[in-house]
């Protein structure tokens, strides 16, 4: 396990990667990526039992992760690369022709670390349940993690999956919801209100944990560890994780407007200055 000061540096470096990747091709989704940086760094750097090399699709005796809200690919790609799944310099190919780093994650080009395509929303929890069932059949004690957006929960398939996981007692599954309250057309409360999210998950039979500080690395690590302890007790576990979209770059923070928009040269320079350099170095 990496020490906390390294992981904090890594958070900064991942944010630099996200902004640079999106700036380079003038497309991509920086807002949710920046908001989920602590989650990915905590998960890959401190929580998952995984082996980046050689990458094995089936992932037997490893923890598995499924990203449902595939548009936040920049943060995932950066963390995968910096965890050893593929060369860091490959981040420079994001969204360019012939890349393995597709706009939305895919298995088609064989990028290590990605187990299923995502982007069309609402499908990730189902896939994670399937992998969790397979682990149960195999007597494999490792867990399956999944991240989904909050706006994404407007997709009906999510609720189908929630019912299934509770009914079949899929308790080796830990889903995290990026509860940033924003989606493309505005705040979720204005687009389609999610209502009382904790009560809804609870009513669907899940063990519900709430993380108020989703952009505090130590809080995220503590919560993921708590969720692991709560698993294996007959219920699937969900962490409702409050984050700020665009966290770390002042003009991107707390608004839906940077969901899928790239910074211009001046904004890029301002973002990089705010984030500051790290010993890890840019791609």
């Amino acid at each position, binding site marked *: 396990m990496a020490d906390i000061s390294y992981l904090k540096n890594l958070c900064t470096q991942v944010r630099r990667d996200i902004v640079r990747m999106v700036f380079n091709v003038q497309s991509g989704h920086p807002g949710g990526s920046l908001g989920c940086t602590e989650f990915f760094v905590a998960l890959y750097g401190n929580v998952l039992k995984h082996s980046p090399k050689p990458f094995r*699709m*089936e*992932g*037997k005796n490893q923890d*598995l992760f*499924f990203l449902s809200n595939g548009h936040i690919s920049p943060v995932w790609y950066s963390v995968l690369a910096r965890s050893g799944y593929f060369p860091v310099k490959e981040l420079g190919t994001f969204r360019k022709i012939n890349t393995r780093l597709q706009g939305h994650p*895919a*298995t*088609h080009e064989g990028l290590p670390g990605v*187990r*299923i*395509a*995502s*982007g*069309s929303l*609402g*499908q*990730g*929890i*189902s*896939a*994670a*349940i*399937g*992998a*969790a*069932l*397979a*682990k149960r*059949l*195999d007597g494999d004690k490792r867990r399956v993690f999944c991240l989904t957006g909050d706006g994404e929960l407007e997709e*009906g*398939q999510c609720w*189908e*999956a929630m*019912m*299934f996981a509770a*009914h*079949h007692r899929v308790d080796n599954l830990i889903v995290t919801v990026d509860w940033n309250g924003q989606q493309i057309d505005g705040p979720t409360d204005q687009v389609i209100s999610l209502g009382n999210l904790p009560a809804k998950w609870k009513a669907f039979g899940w063990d519900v944990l709430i993380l108020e500080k989703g952009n505090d690395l130590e809080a995220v690590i503590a919560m993921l560890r708590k969720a692991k302890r709560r698993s294996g007790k007959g219920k699937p576990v969900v962490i409702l994780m409050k984050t700020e979209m665009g966290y770390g770059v002042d003009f991107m923070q707390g608004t839906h407007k940077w969901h899928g928009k790239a910074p211009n040269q001046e904004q890029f320079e301002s973002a990089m200055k705010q984030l500051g350099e790290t010993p890890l170095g840019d791609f």
Partner: protein
Amino acid sequence: MNINELTSSASRATREGFGAGLLELGRQNPNVVGLTADLMESLLMQHFQKEFPERFFQCGIAEANMMGIAAGLATAGKIPFTGTFANFSTGRVYDQIRQSIAYSHKNVKICASHAGVTLGEDGATHQILEDIGMMRMLPGMVVINPCDYNQTKAATMAIAEYHGPVYLRFGRPAWPIFTPENQKFKIGKALHLASGKDVTIFATGHLVWTSIEAAKELAGQGISCEVINIHTIKPLDEEAILDSVSKTRAVVVAEEHQRNGGLGDAIANLLVHKLPVPMEYVGVNDSFGESGKPAELLEKYGMGKKDVLWAVKDVLDRK
């Protein structure tokens, strides 16, 4: 083989062949798992479920989730067989199949019963006639429509040996059995049923038997039909098709599907590039079905024996 040697002494539904095949497969391959969306008994999956309860997952009336779970099971090394009606196996969940299964190249077997108008009295809401078209458009998807009980059983077992997504389509009604028991099924290998020189009838699914009956009648009128069972619509056995057509130079394609997008279009696509000849479709002409008995519906919607007879005569006139 002579067309008159193709006979049938018993009838059973193709979906029963699926149920029997899945049970046998379960005994042979511990990685095979079953899923259903509240239609277990309609697809005869209860035999598998009773013997392997821990390997069977009831998903409830939630097909989208079922497809996603199947993709996840396949990711972790299982061979999932999903079972529901063809309508709910395709159109209802097209995006889930496209992203989580086809694009992600997952080893999921999408098993679809009650396809076409032979579903009968339930009517057009359930009688999907567009499924072959939708599924064959997906890159990397294998599309199979076996013709009788024995072939459906064999196909069910064969697809577990192939790594990749498969759409297996079958139907509801009892249907004549005429292929051998315990046959070997080769994906993508067309089956030559009867030799002829005037016209080739390519048929798939239930309409293979209809085509055999039509060919017998035509033989009595001195018209010699080659009959080929295209159980695998994708990948298409191009060699077998071109071999036969280069001999007969006239083609009829028969399927329980829209003329748009089905086997007829797949063969037309091949022939227009390689060997253009007079060709006629037997299928539904841009219409929805309705309630009724299977035989009545096949007649009314242009997929009866009379339609094969008419199509053969039409292409021969144009030859």
